[in-house]
């Protein structure tokens, strides 16, 4: 029996392909089984100086980044599988049949960085603090207060959370990187967690140094409750303000990781790719909404017509195309990439007033609304924090509002000063402000920026129907009914079009990771998986 040349060639090709495939198959476990290497310091950066370090009381990402590896939570997002919630200080937890009681069984023999033993009293002290109605806790407190009725220490190693209702977002919220457990004795000694000396946690790293405006350093906690971890000797976070400085550090190999806000823009990513071949550059969502805030408590935006005019005039597609260099989802109140079908279909969103293209109809309508109250147009001051590319974005917003007779002058704030001003309502328009989700959960954005009591409802807008729908969705246990409620809420917000929190779109961007960095997986929010407990550096 003879074999044709073609058949022989095909057989040879198949054999080679098979061998190649086997090679890949055998090579894959070799990579996965790579033995973690101990030692080394991971260098990355904070976009600004945190100033204050109290993770319960502050909201800037830099505060969370500065303290992420120091504290542990009851639960956490799995560093190996970031969408999964796993135990942290709690080794397991149970839920009562009615879903209203969550019992956390704590690890034993855990020590604080100062050698004191950890117990349920610390958990109770932490959550009593965060849930105190008089304590402003814009992240952890804001997400838990609507759900949690009380926290009790059952015994030294057991804590019980009683909920007001069976809330689906409770577990994702308690696992949030903002709900970290602090030591009762440290809170008693310092009153808060702002000082560097108060950074005493149970986490994989100890707080080593904070040089204002320069660097934050952690060092390995040799007594970490998971034996063998962390692999790194330390983490160094340089405080790098401004895109050019951050990019220069990346190009000069001074940082190994860029995986937090602000993302790189495409031009920056391209520049980095030309400068370094030892990095993996990737585009990803960052679970963050680009907002414009109008102050609904002050003229002129206490007038719903003016708010509607801005909502109509903002060209979200142009802002995403130019300010985010195309990396983002314009108009969406919820991003389907992140929360699936809880998000209203994007083709429906694209037809809503303010989002529909071409823009002429909305601009003409907006112009009429402005002229009705201000025949000669009006002058306003627009505030922006000097971080990321906010100043560029602000200029685009100014240019768009000029089309409808709103003339703006820009007032820039240093990062922390901006937050302080916005929190006090000391602004007319915030031209741009990204708001990252604390948890990857559809309720997040509504309880962050739309409901009356939201921590980032800077415009202090209140609409009972928004509150009611958000509350009903939060309490709803049926997934399908929750979805319908969130759809109704999104449709209501889009149709009404006079909210003081104007969603421009969901932010995406470019990031990079040094190829030597192993076992790092980006979290589902920009806040998660910043502890680096399982990260190591290959030689």
């Amino acid at each position, binding site marked *: 029996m003879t074999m044709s040349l073609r058949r022989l060639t095909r057989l040879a090709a198949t054999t080679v392909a098979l061998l190649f495939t086997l090679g890949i198959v055998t090579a894959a476990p070799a990579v996965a089984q790579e033995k973690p290497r101990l030692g080394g310091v991971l260098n990355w950066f904070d976009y600004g100086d945190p100033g204050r370090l109290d993770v319960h009381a502050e909201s800037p990402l830099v505060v969370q980044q500065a303290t992420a590896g120091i504290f542990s939570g009851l639960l956490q997002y799995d560093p190996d599988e970031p969408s999964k919630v796993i135990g942290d200080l709690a080794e397991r937890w149970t839920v009562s049949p009615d879903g209203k009681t969550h019992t956390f069984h704590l690890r034993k023999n855990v020590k604080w960085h100062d050698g004191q033993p950890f117990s349920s009293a610390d958990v109770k002290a932490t959550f009593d603090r965060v849930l105190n109605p008089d304590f402003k806790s814009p992240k952890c407190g804001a997400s838990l207060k609507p759900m949690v009725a009380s926290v009790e220490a059952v015994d030294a190693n057991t804590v019980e959370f009683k909920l007001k209702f069976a809330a689906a977002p409770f577990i994702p919220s308690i696992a949030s990187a903002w709900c970290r457990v602090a030591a009762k004795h440290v809170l008693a000694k310092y009153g808060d967690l702002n000082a560097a000396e108060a950074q005493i946690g149970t986490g994989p790293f100890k707080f080593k140094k904070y040089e204002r405006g320069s660097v934050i350093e952690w060092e390995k906690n040799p007594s970490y409750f998971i034996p063998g971890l962390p692999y790194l000797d330390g983490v160094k976070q340089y405080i790098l303000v401004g*895109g*050019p400085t951050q*990019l220069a550090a990346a190009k000069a190999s001074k940082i190994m990781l860029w995986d937090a806000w602000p993302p790189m823009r495409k*031009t*920056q990513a*391209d*520049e980095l790719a*030309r400068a370094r071949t030892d990095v993996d550059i990737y585009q990803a969502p960052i679970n963050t909404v680009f907002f414009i805030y109008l102050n609904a408590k002050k003229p002129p935006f206490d007038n719903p017509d003016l708010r509607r005019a801005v909502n109509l005039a903002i060209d979200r597609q*142009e802002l995403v195309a*130019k*300010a985010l*260099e195309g990396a983002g989802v314009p108009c969406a109140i919820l991003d389907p990439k992140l929360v699936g079908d809880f998000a209203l279909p994007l083709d429906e969103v694209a037809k809503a007033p303010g989002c529909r293209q071409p823009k002429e109809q909305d601009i003409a309508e907006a112009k009429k609304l402005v002229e009705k109250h201000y025949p000669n147009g009006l002058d306003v001051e627009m505030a922006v924090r*000097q971080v990321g*590319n906010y*100043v*560029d974005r*602000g*200029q*685009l917003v*100014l*240019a768009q509002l*000029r089309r409808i007779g709103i003339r703006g*002058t*820009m*007032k*820039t704030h240093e990062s922390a000063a901006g937050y302080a001003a916005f929190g006090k309502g000391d602004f007319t328009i915030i031209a741009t402000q990204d708001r990252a989700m604390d948890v990857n959960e559809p309720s997040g954005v509504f309880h962050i920026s739309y409901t009356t009591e939201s921590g980032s409802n800077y415009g202090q807008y209140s609409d009972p129907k928004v509150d009611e729908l958000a509350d009903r969705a939060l309490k709803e246990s049926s997934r399908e009914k929750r979805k319908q409620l969130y759809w109704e809420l999104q449709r209501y917000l889009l149709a009404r079009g006079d909210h003081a929190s104007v969603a421009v779109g969901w932010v995406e961007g470019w990031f990079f990771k040094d190829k030597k960095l192993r076992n790092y997986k980006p979290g589902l929010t920009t806040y998660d998986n910043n502890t680096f407990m399982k990260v190591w550096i290959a030689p």
Partner: protein
Amino acid sequence: MRRALAGFITGQPLGAAGALVVLVLILVALLAPALAPHGPKDAAFAPYVAPGREFPMGTDQLGRDLLSRVIWGARLSLYVGVVSVLFGVTLGALWGAVTGYLGGASDTSSQRVVDCLMALPPIILALSLMAALGQSVNNVILALVILLTPTAARTIRSVALGVAATPFIEAAQAAGASQSRIIFRYLIPNCMASYIVLVTTNISYAIVVEASLSFIGAGAPPDEPSWGGMLTAGIQALETAPWMVFFPGLAISLAVFGLNLLGDSIRDLTDPRLRGGLG
């Protein structure tokens, strides 16, 4: 007139070149609305378009026509330069002339104030002032006035001291002329040459300070077409869009070069020692 102009061109060719640059700068600033093909703040085009037929200087990161912004930037730079220098140098000149002539405690105390102001590094002082006053074009002018006044006061005072010792001032005093008459009728007019030199040389300084403040984000508001602000945006995309740095940088260099040449030339013409005549 024509002969004087020809004499200036042949006698001071560099000064004439400087004057030409300054003249172009003034014309561009005055005619900006007519010359600029687009609004300086209109972000209506694609970002990072390279220089070409449609956009001779390209577009910036927000899709604004860079040529239009550079043209409007001339207006802003000249406005800041001229207004701040006129106010700052005039105020300083009056201060220096009056206290220099009066002498005594008022002169001593005012010169200590000048010492204090001049001891502060100019950019640091300007930055502090901008931080205190807030970002606006008029606040840049105010900061520059505060920077320029002591230097002008010190320079004009030294000139005034020399003038005050001349026989015609003594004659006026002997004739019973009032102090204000002596200062404004005889002293100040004889300090005018130095004043004019100070004005011309300091306009370029003011333009550079404004550009520097805007470059570090403490000058004109970011959406204003300031050459320094354009440089800041440009360095963020230096490899991708080098034209964003090149054209505003060129504009600053040309303006400063032209004003310096003109200033040097005016100094040469008005300084008797350099003129080779009366000195």
